[in-house]
C-alpha cells in the first residue's frame, strides 16, 4: 500500500524494515487511529522511526510523498489563500501599491508566482533572499505578504493545519549531523568501553563458588570476584591557540564529555603539531612542559591516543626541522608524530574543521596521510567513526 513511501524513506537513510512496514499495516487494520491524515502521520512515525534524530528526515519525506493528500475531501486549497489574500490586499494596499502589483503582471501572475514559491519553500526550506518576506528583496515582502500572513490564511482549512505538523519540522535540532552537545558526545564515547575486572572483590562468583564447593566435598565455599569496570585508557592531545581559537567551543565540549566518561584520561596540549614537548596546562606552557618521550614512557601502548587539532599550519611546521612557529625543533613534526603513532597502535585524529574544506589545506592533507586515514571530523558521526577505528589496532 505504502511500499513507495518505505522506499522513499530508505533512500533518505531512514532505516525502515519489512517488519515495521507490516506492523504499520497491522496497526491500520486494527483501526486504532481515525481516518485523518494527522493520525496516520503520528502512527507512521511511531511505527517507522525509532530514533529521534531521524524524525526530521521522516518529516521531510512524509511532506514530499504525501503532498496533495491533505486536499482529499477538503476544499480546493488554492482558492482559499487567493481569496483571502485578495481581500486582505484590497483592504490594506494604497492605490499606488495596487498599481505596482499590476505592473508585475497582474493578480493571476502574482498568485501563480506566490504559489510556486510557497511550494519551493516547503521542499527546500533553506534559501537565499528569494523567499517571501525576507528583507524586502522579494516583491512579496514589500506589500506585507509575509509567510506568516499567508499561512494564517491557509489555516482557514482544517486540512492545511494537519500538514503543518510535519511541515513544522520540530525535530530538526535532533538530526544526527547537526547537534553536538556533551551528552551526545558522551554517548558516542561509550563505544570505547572495554570491560575488565579489577579492584576489590565484591561480587559473588557463582560458577567459582559451585566449583570450589564441589572440590571442598560439598561444604559451602563462597568465592567473590571484582565487578566489571570500564578499563579503557585515553591519552588526549589537544591543539591550542592560533587557528584553533575558532573551534574552542566544540573542543571544550568534547573534552568535558571525555572527562566524565573515562576514568583513565590524561590530557596534554600542543601547538599546531606535537614536537618534543607537550604541556599539561596551557597557562604554564613555557615553564612546565613535559618531554614527549616521558609522556610515552609514562603512558604505555595500551593507552588509546586521540589527537584533536585543525591541522592547519604551514607545511614546513610538519616536514622540516626548525619549522615550529614557537621554538627551534631539532626534529621535524613528522618524525614526532610518526613516533607517537608507532608507540600507540590505537590512535585517531579528530579535526574540528569542516570536512569539505580538508582538501584545500596542504598541511591537513599531509597529516591525513601520516594518520593513514585515521582523521575524522568533529561531528557526532565523525567521533563515532573515530572510536570505532580506535577499537582496532593499526
Amino acid at each position, binding site marked *: 500500500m505504502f511500499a513507495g513511501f518505505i522506499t522513499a524513506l530508505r533512500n533518505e537513510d531512514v532505516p525502515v524494515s519489512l517488519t515495521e512496514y507490516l506492523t504499520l499495516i497491522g496497526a491500520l487494520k486494527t483501526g486504532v487511529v481515525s481516518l485523518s491524515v494527522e493520525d496516520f502521520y*503520528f502512527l507512521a512515525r*511511531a511505527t517507522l522511526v525509532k530514533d529521534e534524530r531521524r524524525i526530521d528526515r521522516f518529516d521531510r519525506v512524509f511532506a514530499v510523498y504525501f503532498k496533495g493528500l491533505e486536499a482529499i475531501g477538503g476544499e480546493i486549497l488554492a482558492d482559499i489563500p487567493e481569496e483571502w489574500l485578495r481581500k486582505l490586499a484590497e483592504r490594506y494596499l494604497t492605490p499606488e501599491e495596487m498599481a505596482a502589483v499590476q505592473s508585475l503582471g497582474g493578480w493571476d501572475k502574482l498568485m501563480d508566482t506566490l504559489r510556486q514559491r510557497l511550494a519551493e519553500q516547503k521542499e527546500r526550506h533553506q534559501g537565499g533572499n528569494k523567499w517571501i518576506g525576507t528583507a524586502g528583496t522579494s516583491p512579496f515582502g514589500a506589500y506585507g505578504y509575509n509567510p506568516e500572513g499567508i499561512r494564517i490564511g491557509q489555516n482557514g482549512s482544517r486540512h492545511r493545519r494537519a500538514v503543518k505538523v510535519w511541515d513544522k519540522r520540530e525535530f530538526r535540532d535532533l538530526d544526527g549531523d547537526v547537534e553536538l552537545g556533551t551528552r551526545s558526545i558522551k554517548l558516542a564515547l561509550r563505544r570505547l568501553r572495554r570491560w575488565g575486572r579489577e579492584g576489590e572483590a565484591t561480587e559473588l562468583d557463582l560458577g567459582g563458588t559451585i566449583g570450589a564447593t564441589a572440590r571442598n566435598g*560439598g561444604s559451602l565455599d563462597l568465592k567473590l570476584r571484582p565487578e566489571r569496570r570500564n578499563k579503557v585508557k585515553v591519552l588526549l592531545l589537544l591543539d591550542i591557540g592560533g587557528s584553533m581559537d575558532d573551534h574552542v567551543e566544540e573542543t571544550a565540549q568534547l573534552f568535558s564529555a571525555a572527562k566524565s566518561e573515562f576514568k583513565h584520561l590524561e590530557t596534554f596540549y600542543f601547538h599546531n603539531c606535537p614536537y618534543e614537548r607537550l604541556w599539561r596546562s596551557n597557562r604554564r606552557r613555557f615553564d612546565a612542559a613535559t618531554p614527549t618521550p616521558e609522556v610515552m614512557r609514562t603512558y604505555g601502548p595500551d593507552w588509546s591516543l586521540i589527537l584533536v587539532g585543525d591541522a592547519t599550519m604551514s607545511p614546513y611546521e610538519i616536514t622540516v626541522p626548525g619549522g615550529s612557529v614557537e621554538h627551534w625543533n631539532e626534529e621535524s613534526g613528522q618524525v614526532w608524530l610518526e613516533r607517537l603513532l608507532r608507540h600507540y597502535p590505537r590512535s585517531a585524529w579528530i579535526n574540528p574543521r569542516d570536512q569539505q574544506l580538508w582538501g584545500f589545506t596542504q598541511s591537513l592533507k599531509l597529516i591525513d596521510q601520516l594518520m593513514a586515514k585515521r582523521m575524522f571530523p568533529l561531528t557526532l558521526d565523525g567521533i563515532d567513526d573515530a572510536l570505532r577505528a580506535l577499537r582496532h589496532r593499526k
Partner: protein
Amino acid sequence: MTNSSKAGGFAGTDSYIATRDLEVAVNASVALGRPLLVKGEPGTGKTVLAAEVARALGQDLIQWHIKSTTKAAQGLYEYDAVARLRDGQLGEAKVHDIRNYIIRGKLWEAFASERQVVLLIDEIDKADIEFPNDLLQELDRMEFFVYETKETVTAKHRPVVIITSNNEKELPDAFLRRCFFHYIRFPDREIMERIVAAHYPDIKANLVREALTLFYEIRDVPGLRKKPATSELLDWLKLLMVEDIPAETLKSKDPKVVVPPLYGALLKNEQDLHLFERVAFMARRGQ
C-alpha cells in the same frame, strides 16, 4: 483531559496531559501487543506515563527498574543455587524440589498475572549494551523457557509493555524493530499551562503566567548543563504556592533581585546558577 471515551483506549487522564501523537502511539502498541519505547528529555514524564496508562486502562502496574548491573535473566527468574547448596548441607526436605529455589522476576510476574497488566521497564539504557537483545524473544513471543524445571512460561494475557530510555546507549536495531517509538518533546507553553492546571487546579492564573515566562527564559539561557524540565517546574510552582509568593515578585525589575525566589528547584548546580545570574544581570542592566 477526560478519561478515554473508547473502550480500552488511552487519551490522557485528568492528571496527565497526553498529546495526540502520544495517544496514537500508546493505542497502537496496546492494540498490537508490542512494546512502546519512550524517549525524551529527563523530567518530561516518561516514567509517569506507564502509571497513567495503567490507570486509564484500569490495570495493575508492574515496574522493573533497570540498573547498570541488571541482567535480562533477572527479569525472567533467578535460580538460587547457593541457598539450595546450603539447604542440601542442612538436610532440608525442600531441597529435592528445584522449584523452591527459583525466584520469579518481574517479567514472569507480568506473564503469570490473571488479568492484563502494564509492565514498565524503566531506563533500559542503564543496563549493559546486550540487555535489550537478551529480551528479544521474550518480548516478541511473550514466553520463555525455564531450564531448571523444563517448563515454558507463556503469558496468559500479553502485558502492555512500556520501556523508557534516556539515550545513554544506542539500542540494537533488532530490538527497535519490534517496538513502537515515541519521543516526548518538551511541551510548549500552551500544553505546559494545561499540565500545570491538571496538577494544581486552584493555582492563581497570574502566578502561572509569570512563573512560566521566567521558566522558559531560564530554559533559553544558552549553555545550561541541565535545563529545568516539567517535573522541576511543578516542584517549583508547588514551593511558590506553599511559600505564598506573590506573582509580582517574579517580575520584579529590582536589579538586586536577579535570581528568582526558590531557584533551587529549577537550577541544580552552581555553574548553571552563576551562568543564569550573569545572563539575568546583563538583561536587567540592558533594560
